[in-house]
């Protein structure tokens, strides 16, 4: 499959994530949308990694070009896991105090 399909697909996923972050009011759904953004990036990195690998393979059958892209994906997954643990703790902390996970609820408390 041409690489363009992957790029369009990942950009679509990424845009859905961005729109979700900007429009949804539930903290957990916003958080899920952020995860969607990160996963779109993961997919794109793997696709590019394969593309670069495939291109280098023609010249040198034992090439390792493109491996770093897939390594990056592992780092993103680890960091995303750390972010999830901190983020869910923050959301739980907020729920304990307000009994709601609505982002607008917090804005009403301002001033």
């Amino acid at each position: 499959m041409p690489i363009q399909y992957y790029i369009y697909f990942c950009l679509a996923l990424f845009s859905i994530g961005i729109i979700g972050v900007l429009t949804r009011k539930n903290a957990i759904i916003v958080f899920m949308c952020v995860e969607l953004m990160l996963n779109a990036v993961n997919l794109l990195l793997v696709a590019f990694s394969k593309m670069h690998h495939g291109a280098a393979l023609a010249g040198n059958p034992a090439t390792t070009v493109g491996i770093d892209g897939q390594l990056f994906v592992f780092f993103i997954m680890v960091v995303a896991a750390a972010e999830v643990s901190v983020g869910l703790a923050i959301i739980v902390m907020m729920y304990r105090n307000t009994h709601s996970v609505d982002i607008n609820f917090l804005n009403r408390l301002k001033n």
Partner: protein
Amino acid sequence: MNAIIFSAVLGVVMMFSGIILRSKSAVTTTAIVSLLVLLLANIFNIYDVFSIHIDTRGLLHFNKFGLFFNTILIAATLIFVLLSGKDIEKAGANVSDYYALIFFVLCGTSILTSFNGLLMLFLGIEIMTIPLYILTGADKRNLKSNEASLKYFLMGCFSTGIMLMGIALVYGATGSFSLNVAASSPASAGMPVSSFLQMAGLILLFVSMCFKVSAAPFHFWTPDVYDGAPSVFTSFMATIVKAGGFFAFLNLFESNAQLLGATWKLLMSFVIIATLLIGNITAVFQQSIKRMMAYSSIAQAGFMLFALYSFNDMAKEGILLYAVAYCLATIGFFSVLIKVKDYTFDGFNGLAKTQPVIAFSATVFLMSLAGIPLTAGFFAKYYMLASVVKSGGSLWIVVVAVLFAAISVYYYFKVIQAMYFKEGQPETHEITGRFKTGLVLVAAAVILVGVLPSIVLNWFYF
């Protein structure tokens, strides 16, 4: 390498110190000793007295500028803990954890001052910000702290997502995560749009870095987060973390700015003017001094952005000097702010009568932030503007910056006016003699750097 290893190990040590040590002040003492160790380890690394070498396959690159910048950040953290250690103890129940998180943040800034590729940039930014989300929400029962924490977390994740997309697009175009995007040739010739991908990736990286250093138009999270977080941690966030972010920003775009050509200067002047405008004008109308300081930190970020506009040696010296001046003054002023119970301007009324030493030091810090001559802030601003002139940049942007600096005098001096020329009985927390001595020393350092800026800069070339 020293700073990265030591800060991570000492962070774990701090975590366990909470189990072993029963008293909170003992934990603070441990933190101060650990910070001294970290500072010495980093200084030894600069002069190659004792340094751990690990082959990182080009992921990290240690040069004198970065190491020196890191020394400044660690020293600023030390001053921060010395001045506000007692207030960190009061921020919540888990003192040792806060110190551990502060060390992890320092680990992140150590990576950011030495990264040599987009992978390490990403890891450094994340190691720096994830502990901060927790520190922002340290006051668990306070709704404002909760709100700040959640907002910071969501905005931080969002900008991380944008940064990752930028990195992925740059990778697609060039086939490597090397810092110098221009130098790495496209691996696959089969990509007709690779230069477009590269440009889009760089712009996304730019946007996400603007988020991290709170430059307009991506600054909107800053006032709420700085206002809601416990004041001690606001002080930490506004200084050390922001300076670390700036270094990464500078390092990332130093070699890549020319890819954007003339557009870069145009883009930067737009961002600088917008940041200065929003920071300064909004700060004028604030009722709470803490919130005013949040906007003032946006305004100061506008000045630091000049280093990215000009990218010459003078800009590098300028950002060093700015980091020193800004960190000293802001940490000092926040340590005073924490001692006052009421954060509005009226809360400072008559402070000069009841606490003359503290009021005088606060005046020095505010004058430094405003850029009055004989204080460190003056030369910091001077170097920034001179670097623009030297790089052949347009003069009108310098004029606009000076005008905004003049506006900033108004809101900084409003605090001085409240302290000296208004009657009132300010309520303060307990102020010890040690705190006063420390504060006077920091104020003296601000004046010393203001009179002889070469102290900092000669060290850099030494």
